């Protein structure tokens, strides 16, 4: 659905990274972990297009200003990468946004009781928080979070507060182990028992590595992808990725917005 939203908070959680809480209609609490929102940052024609953001968190709080006595909210976690996100970072409490949400397909939680592994790179942690919030109810959850430097590893304490066991890797070693998050994950998985399901969100090379690990371990793996898109609802066909059956003769393009953003890793071509 499309709705007008008000900014509740917009906080810089790490240099260049922001966490924004916005009002939403009550129906939005039905959003699934892994779904995303399309945000129109300005009513002007420049920047023209909406920007997609994974839902980081959602909920409601008591308020006397709503008929139901509760105000629903959603949160996004974003990195300032250009003019659009720069303008978003400048918004304050009470500013208005036009939002379409919830969009896309979310994560599959799998069987209760199984151990789940989350792998996040940089701002790719965003959709994993809501997932972790659901999973901890009936699963053991471990998170491997990676980033270039300590500033790029976000909201780890939030995950820890949920009871998620967290491991951190940075390229420069300023936080956690030095190295790639997938290497750190392999080291820890070698000692503990095999997990039953992997979830990953982050840069494409990281996702490819996680998909490869899942294939070797023969465990199901879901990845959440990011892509440029204009509409978020399967009309512009700007955000496609190659499916596993793709070839020049038999095209198998999938829309990140509609067929994803969460895919089974085995459904995609990782070339």
């Amino acid at each position: 659905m499309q709705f007008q939203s008000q900014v509740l908070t917009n906080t810089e959680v790490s240099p260049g990274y922001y966490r924004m809480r916005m009002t939403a209609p009550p129906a939005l609490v039905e959003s699934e972990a892994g779904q995303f929102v399309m945000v129109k940052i300005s009513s002007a024609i420049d920047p023209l297009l909406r920007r997609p953001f994974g839902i980081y968190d959602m909920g409601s709080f008591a308020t006397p200003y709503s008929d139901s006595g509760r105000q629903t909210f959603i949160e996004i976690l974003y990195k300032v990468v250009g003019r659009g996100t720069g303008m978003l970072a400048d918004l304050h409490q009470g500013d208005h946004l036009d939002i379409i949400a919830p969009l896309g397909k979310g994560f599959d939680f799998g069987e209760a009781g199984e151990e789940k592994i989350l792998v996040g790179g940089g701002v790719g942690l965003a959709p994993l928080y809501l997932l972790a919030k659901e999973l901890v109810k009936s699963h053991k959850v471990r998170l491997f979070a990676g980033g270039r430097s300590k500033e790029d590893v976000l909201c780890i304490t939030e995950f820890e507060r949920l009871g998620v066991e967290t491991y951190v890797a940075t390229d420069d070693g300023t936080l956690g182990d030095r190295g790639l998050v997938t290497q750190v994950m392999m080291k820890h998985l070698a000692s503990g028992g095999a997990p039953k399901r992997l979830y990953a969100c982050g840069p494409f090379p990281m996702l490819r590595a996680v998909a490869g690990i899942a294939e070797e371990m023969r465990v199901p793996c879901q990845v959440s992808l990011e892509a440029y898109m204009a509409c978020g609802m399967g009309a512009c066909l700007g955000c496609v990725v190659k499916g596993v059956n793709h070839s020049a003769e038999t095209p198998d393009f999938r829309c990140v917005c509609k067929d994803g953003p969460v895919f089974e890793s085995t459904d995609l071509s990782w070339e």
Partner: protein
Amino acid sequence: MTKPVMSVEIAGIKMRNPVMTASGTFGYGEEFAGYMDLESIGAMITKGLSLKPKAGNNTPRIVETPGGMLNAIGLQNVGIDAFIAKKLPFLRRVNTPVIVNLYGNSLEEYGELAARIDGLPEIAGVEVNISYPNVKQGGIVFGTDPGAASQVVSLVRSNTSKPLIVKLSPNVTDIVVMAKACVDAGAEALSLINTLTGMAIDLQKRRPVLANITGGLSGPAIKPVALRMVWQVARAVKVPLIGIGGVMNATDALEFILAGATAVQIGTANFLTPAASQQIAAEMEQWLVDNRVGDVKELIGALKS
């Protein structure tokens, strides 16, 4: 005051109002059903259909530019057969004319596509795409050469009795020459403009942003060009025109009608607001009420100059 008359007719296609959705920005209609009333607009035009399914280009396929966007989708579509089998059954239930946008890789393909849809009663008309700028073989040649365009239009004309609209490319020296060639070959209406060929560059990477290097520019940025071309063509041909190019609101739509268009197509705006076409139609009607215009047709080509 009584409600103003909003209905218009394009090549025999009766529409409840002059607002249509542009090919390639409205999927196959179904995608937008959850966001708007598909029976609130004049007509729907499908994603461009080719004889065989088409994979389209590699990504990145789109990039935002000031006041607009470039796209190089490469005509990804399900193909005419899958459209008829899988997409048309939904559209059949919607009481709004469905116009199919057709694209051929060769003259023969255009002819075959036209023949294929001729017997389908649920298709109200054909919009022939001779102007798709992103596919190297074909499109641009038909779209920029009056002789080739004329051949395509004649062949489609002889292969279907459906109302025939031809969509013109702005990437030509003189659009009036192309418009006349298409009308002389049997086009009953013209839609203009398709996207303007453009490109975007990533300075740090020193690379083009789009995988296809060039793409089609759409959105508010192209509206002045589109208005000028509609105005020029309106003075040169007698068939109805459909204005396309950066229509974001009722003001934009009514400007096209003043310039000589009988109807407009909503394109990029569908990406920003899925119900844009419905909202624009409602706003247009309100403008007519506020300005005491009894029939939208009074405004067609009514530009004072």
